[in-house]
């Protein structure tokens, strides 16, 4: 028999509370335009199928993972290449004001699930780094990201929350990853504080190559964890 999903899980509510708090503080939110609630993405429930066993399938490279300037939640300058190469990296592009439960909150929820799975497997815990990269540098300052991180990051786990100094500094990174975003405006051209985008999460190997890309329908902590195990099961290529 195939498994069937369970209902809402506590952390989803935490994400929604975070988003609601942020939006309540935003004078530009346009709550009257929100459509009816959507069906939750598969990543919030138990996996609806038995995934292929780690190492039983290939994850062919999807191109080089680009570099990009960033600052971390402590305000220190860094870059994507500084934060990759030594570990497998799971990179999501998010913004903390994102109010759609199947968007950025899903990415953060799944990354927390991946974190939990890695913590449960000591052989994997130190092999992976999680990166949550904001594409809303105007709002997502290092201080905002630090507060956001407190809700999700386990103590001492290698999960970095990144932003940039400006939209101009961010643009080359988004372009290199094909992460298309559009700032939402009203009929007068006023920024609404939300950003239209297609959710993407990238799995990057230790050779800084993209090995999988997940979007809303595909993102689940179990399959991501299996992909990580698949990468780790293969011998590392000489650099």
């Amino acid at each position: 028999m195939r498994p069937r999903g369970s209902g809402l899980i506590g952390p989803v509510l935490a994400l929604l509370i975070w988003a609601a708090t942020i939006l309540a503080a935003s004078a530009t939110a346009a709550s009257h335009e929100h459509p009816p609630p959507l069906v939750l993405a598969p990543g919030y429930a138990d996996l609806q199928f038995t995934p292929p066993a780690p190492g039983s399938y290939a994850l062919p490279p999807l191109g080089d993972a680009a570099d990009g300037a960033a600052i971390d939640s402590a305000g220190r300058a860094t870059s994507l290449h500084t934060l990759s190469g030594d570990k497998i990296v799971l990179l999501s592009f998010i913004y903390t004001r994102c109010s759609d439960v199947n968007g950025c909150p899903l990415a953060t929820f799944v990354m927390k699930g991946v974190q939990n799975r890695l913590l449960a497997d000591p052989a994997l815990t130190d092999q992976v780094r999680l990166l949550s990269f904001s594409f809303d540098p105007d709002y997502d300052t290092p201080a905002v990201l630090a507060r956001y991180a407190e809700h999700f990051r386990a103590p001492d786990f290698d999960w970095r929350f990144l932003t940039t100094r400006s939209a101009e500094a961010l643009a080359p990174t988004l372009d290199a990853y094909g992460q298309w975003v559009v700032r939402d405006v009203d009929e007068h051209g006023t920024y609404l504080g939300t950003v239209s985008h297609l959710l993407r999460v990238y799995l990057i190997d230790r050779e800084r190559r993209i090995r999988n890309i997940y979007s809303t329908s595909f993102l689940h902590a179990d399959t991501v964890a299996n992909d990580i195990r698949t990468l780790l099961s293969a011998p590392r290529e000489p650099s």
Partner: protein
Amino acid sequence: MIAPIRPVWFLLACLLCTPSLADETCMSPYMAKIVGQEDFVYIWTLGVAGVGDGQDKLVTVDVNPASPDYGKVVASLSVGGRHEAHHSGLTDDRRYLWASGLDTSHIFVFDIHSDPAKPRLHKTIDDFVAVSGGVVGPHTSYALPGRMLLTGLSNNRDHGGRTALVEYTNDGSFVATHWMPTDDNLQGAVKSGSYADGYGYDARALPRRNVLISSSFTGWINYMMNMGQMMADAEAMKRFGNTVVVWDLHARQPKKILDVPGAPLEIRCAWGGRHDYCFTTTALTSKIWLIYEDADGEWQAKAVADIGDASKIPLPVDISIAADDSLLWVNTWNDGLTRLFDISNPHAPVQVMEQRIGEQVNMVSQSWDGKRVYYTSSLLANWDKTQPAGPDLQYFKLYDWDGKALKPKFAIDFFAAGLGAPHQMRFGAYGLYGLKRPESAGIAATR
């Protein structure tokens, strides 16, 4: 008056797609969607000798009733030569349209986001056969996250029907080739019936079930042959696909080969969160087939309805499933009919209406709300009818569907307009890219 797509609405309703949402043209369930009025239809059009410049081209028609160019061709972009233009598909972010040629195996990637009214050729992939390891005839371009999955129809060894799925990144870099399972090499798949032919045609995914479904048609030798000649050739008529393959989507590995005899073509999967099934139709046996997951989690195939009188060879071609999984449009090319089936019970579809669209009818695409239904006529260069000449031979037509009948809104005679033979349609909209329609006067007069 058509309401514009509002940015915030679009963010929530379209870009962050959940599996329960429907698609306006039967594309990837996770792709950005147009839930309101589409602005443009992009028509991948086969070049015809003596018609205009004779080249394959991407034709853009303005279909927004609020536009002064409503019903007009606003752009026509020729790609040089004839490649057997056939199918096309959008990337997951909907910024690019991939359109391929079944004869030359060239793939043309169009930028449709910079100016949705005037696509431009962004890239041409001309080494598909070489990099794929001998796959010929790229057909379906199906969006996966950050990449495109192309189905092949043939191969360069014997130009028969054995073929593969080929994967590219969105920027056009080759990723991998996944060959169809055959009797010679089942690749771990279970052969559940009599066939393991290795043929290919269309593909659709149900990510929530980790399933990819592929269908099967025929190879280059047949699809480039004159139709009358082929149908008179008993050996040629044996070279059609009889299988649907169920794949492990995540692993890209074939799991089960199902017998679906008679060339199963388009695959359309249901949208409902618990609707674990897809439909296909068989061109040669004129039946609707249901590909479904049974109560034990096993994927099965069964014929669930006849499409017209098979002895008269109606030749089912394109199909289109409604957003709520209640209705299925089925075109039969040979008699020019579109038929509507009630599929509320997917195991027992019932035809509820039929209407003649033209001398021949191939592709059908419907809007998100099902109120607008678009049709084109062309099948293949060497299979298309050439008589009787007139506006019902090679056309693009729009109808309004009121729940009872199709009411014509406009039609474009693609021969009279010097364009060619229209095939696959894909929708475009300014709102997808945070753009507004220019307030200047009509585009058609200036392009």
